């Protein structure tokens, strides 16, 4: 099974730091441990989702502004 990066929190997933900025990461990008791959908004705070493993992003499993649950896979590492 491919490695995955999961959401640590329930909330709303964002792929970019603000609406008019580019995505943190795109498919095909390399990620290192600690890289920010998105944000989860909950309780009026935006929490960075950091990669806990290194690899190359195969696909995003959650869309921008999609509701996510804690433990839900966000990224497949190819």
């Amino acid at each position: 099974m491919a490695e995955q990066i999961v959401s640590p929190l329930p909330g709303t997933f964002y792929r970019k730091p603000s609406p008019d900025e580019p995505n943190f990461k795109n498919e095909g990008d390399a990620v290192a441990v600690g890289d920010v791959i998105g944000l989860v908004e909950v309780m009026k705070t935006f929490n960075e989702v950091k990669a806990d493993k290194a690899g190359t992003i195969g696909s995003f499993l959650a869309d921008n502004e999609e509701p996510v649950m804690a433990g839900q896979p966000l990224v497949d590492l190819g």
Partner: protein
Amino acid sequence: MIKVLNPGLATSVQDMGRHGYYHLGIPQSGGMDQLALQAANLLVGNPADAAVLEATFMGPELEFTADTVVAVTGAALTPKVDGDAQENWHSFPVKAGQVLSFDYLKGGARAYIAVAGGIDVPIVLGSRSTYALGALGGFKGRPIAVGDEIPVGKASGTAGRTLDASLRRAPASPAEIRVLPGIYWHWVTDESGARFYADTWKVAPEADRIGYRFRGGEPIQFTERERPFGAGSDPSNIVDGCYPYGSIQVPGGTEPIILHRDAVSGGGYFMLGTVISADMDLIGQMQPHTPTRFVKVTMDQALQARADRMALIGKIKDALG
């Protein structure tokens, strides 16, 4: 003592709350799920009202400097001692130097971490609860942070006890929250009032200890009426009044907000009604996006539900006393 290696998200010290100051604008604070908080304490052998850590959506990582006993109730956040998974609603030993961490949230929203002897922060206005917005009580008036050293009372504790599943409580799916209509109910059209109960709402991601906001239902329609002097022009405004714990305000008529433990005590929004006291614990266990229905009840039904909840807490005390 407990060393905080990772605070989790908005983890704070809470007990049964700070009562008697709401009229001065100081909210009661305290655990949002008071049944789970008391159960956690009783499991480790503490008085039911001792101070615990309330973790929201995500568990902290804590190192213990002395042997103790811990229990985690409420949300399904599996505790781990040096990586070994432990049961929820169960008291287990933790040795000096061991680290308590948590798996991902699998259900509910808030976990109550009781430690034998209780969290021994100073009592402020009669309570150890944290009111973070007012920088009052708890550990230095704020959620815990990396590097904090949190004092714990002295007690040996009781390990190996489990609270029977029949004595636990969690919201259904969709969650059903019982409401007693309030004194402003006549401001709402009959059709809109019926829609409020018929619609399925969803918990907004902003929901926190201050208030639980909901989205997804139809906006409230107000009856035509002369605006009271001083109430402002929006039909959801009133002349400032007191807000009860559990009251449901709907600013602008769009998104209902249930005031919870850290809420302000008054203001200028009309209230549809009040969530019955028996169901406030359930709100504390609702994640963002939880589908929710509001169910209208009478005062007699509300009082019966309160008696039923108190009886359940009595059974928990009997089982673990």
